[in-house]
């Protein structure tokens, strides 16, 4: 498969109703060019799995404002009042998940685990509908894997085999999401030749990445 593709080729794979993971933390480390492409293309009824819904005018928040998201599975919506409004008025479904649980659920899907046991959320409404498992008198919630049709991630640098290097706090959910979707599309700032990234410095091995889109810097 050709790995380096145009934005249009990448967008061709994202269709109405799909479940899409989007990397980033308050839009830091989000694939902003691909998100703008989704807005232009008008793909709708998406189920989005992400850390948060960012801001109304930035990152995933723009997809919220543009009403392209049917359901958001996120840990936080406080920075985007429009998400709260749509949720309260029943326009958009929002499932709030503790951030660490969200990270482990995505990782579990990528790692072939059937679930993980976490103490997070015990005694709160997060435990509703979930199996509780007691181990040596300590209770845990059984949380299930979260996977997606598509993962849209963002890296600082890629080689042409798809090996990725992230920058600073823009790493966040990107490496996890790269493992947990049927198709992984990475937006990258810089594209280098194979061999230019030291194998010890690769943060996401190229085997996880299906397509690379050159983004802005």
């Amino acid at each position, binding site marked *: 498969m050709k790995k380096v593709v145009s934005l249009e080729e990448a967008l061709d794979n994202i269709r109405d109703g799909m479940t899409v993971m989007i990397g980033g*933390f*308050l839009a*830091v480390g989000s694939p902003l060019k691909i998100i703008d492409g989704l807005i232009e293309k008008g793909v709708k009824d998406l189920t989005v799995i992400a850390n*948060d819904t960012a801001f109304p005018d930035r990152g995933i928040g723009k997809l919220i404002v543009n009403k392209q998201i049917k359901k958001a599975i996120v840990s936080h919506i406080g920075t985007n009042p429009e998400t709260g409004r749509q949720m309260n008025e029943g326009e958009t479904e929002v499932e709030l998940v*503790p951030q*660490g649980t969200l990270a482990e659920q995505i990782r579990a899907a990528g790692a072939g685990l059937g679930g993980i046991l976490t103490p997070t959320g015990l*005694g709160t409404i997060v435990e509703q509908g979930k199996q509780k498992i007691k181990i040596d008198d300590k209770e845990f919630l059984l949380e299930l894997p979260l996977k997606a049709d598509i993962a849209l991630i963002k890296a600082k640098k890629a080689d042409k085999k798809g090996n990725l290097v992230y920058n600073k*706090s823009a790493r*966040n959910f990107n490496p996890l999401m790269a493992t947990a979707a049927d198709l992984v599309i990475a937006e990258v700032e810089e594209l280098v030749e194979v061999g230019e990234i030291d194998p010890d410095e690769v943060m996401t091995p190229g085997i996880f990445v299906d397509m690379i889109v050159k983004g802005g810097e």
Partner: protein
Amino acid sequence: MDKKQIRERIAKRVAKELKDGDIVNLGIGMPTMVANFIPEGVEVILQSENGFVGLGPAPAEGEEDPDLTNAGGQPVTILPGGAFFDSAQSFAIIRGGHVDATVLGALQVDEKGNLANWMIPGKMVPGMGGAMDLTVGAKKVIIAMEHTAKGGKPKILKQCTLPLTAKEQVNLIVTEMAVIEVTKDGLLLKEVGRGLTAEDVQNATEAQLIIDPNLKEMDV
């Protein structure tokens, strides 16, 4: 005291709880201010749940790096000796008990150490973000908040009425009026604000306070 003074007083008092070498996660808002008041000679390592340790002060204007923010999305710096990692590792650090203390705000906290700080049903639902993991995982959970809500309504209750963030995880409550420890017998009033009596604090608190025989004045 005005709002700013109140917040500074709380942040200053919380800062004294941190010990040299502690790994600390500060929540968004007032808890973030604690970093400004860490005593001389005490070095704490700040963890930022969006993916690093070694959180430093805000950069000079014009020096902001769009790829380097704190968990509130504000531009920050990383100190020498810091390290970046992904969100799974970040919460492995948090959930795995590698954070010595976390400082969080609260809407309500009760005498069992229950905490509610992530939603007011039908009104404000920002989401829990990393707060549920932090309260469960950190070795010490410190609540930094104004003692009462608008109109003097108590926030320190017999029992939280809002949806919980975590059950029985709070260790210490620091307000502008008092320092209160959560013990298995209930809430122990350890310090009162300058010029206040234990009774003043009790009057602003719904939960019954146990008065520490060594009750002190808050030194801030």
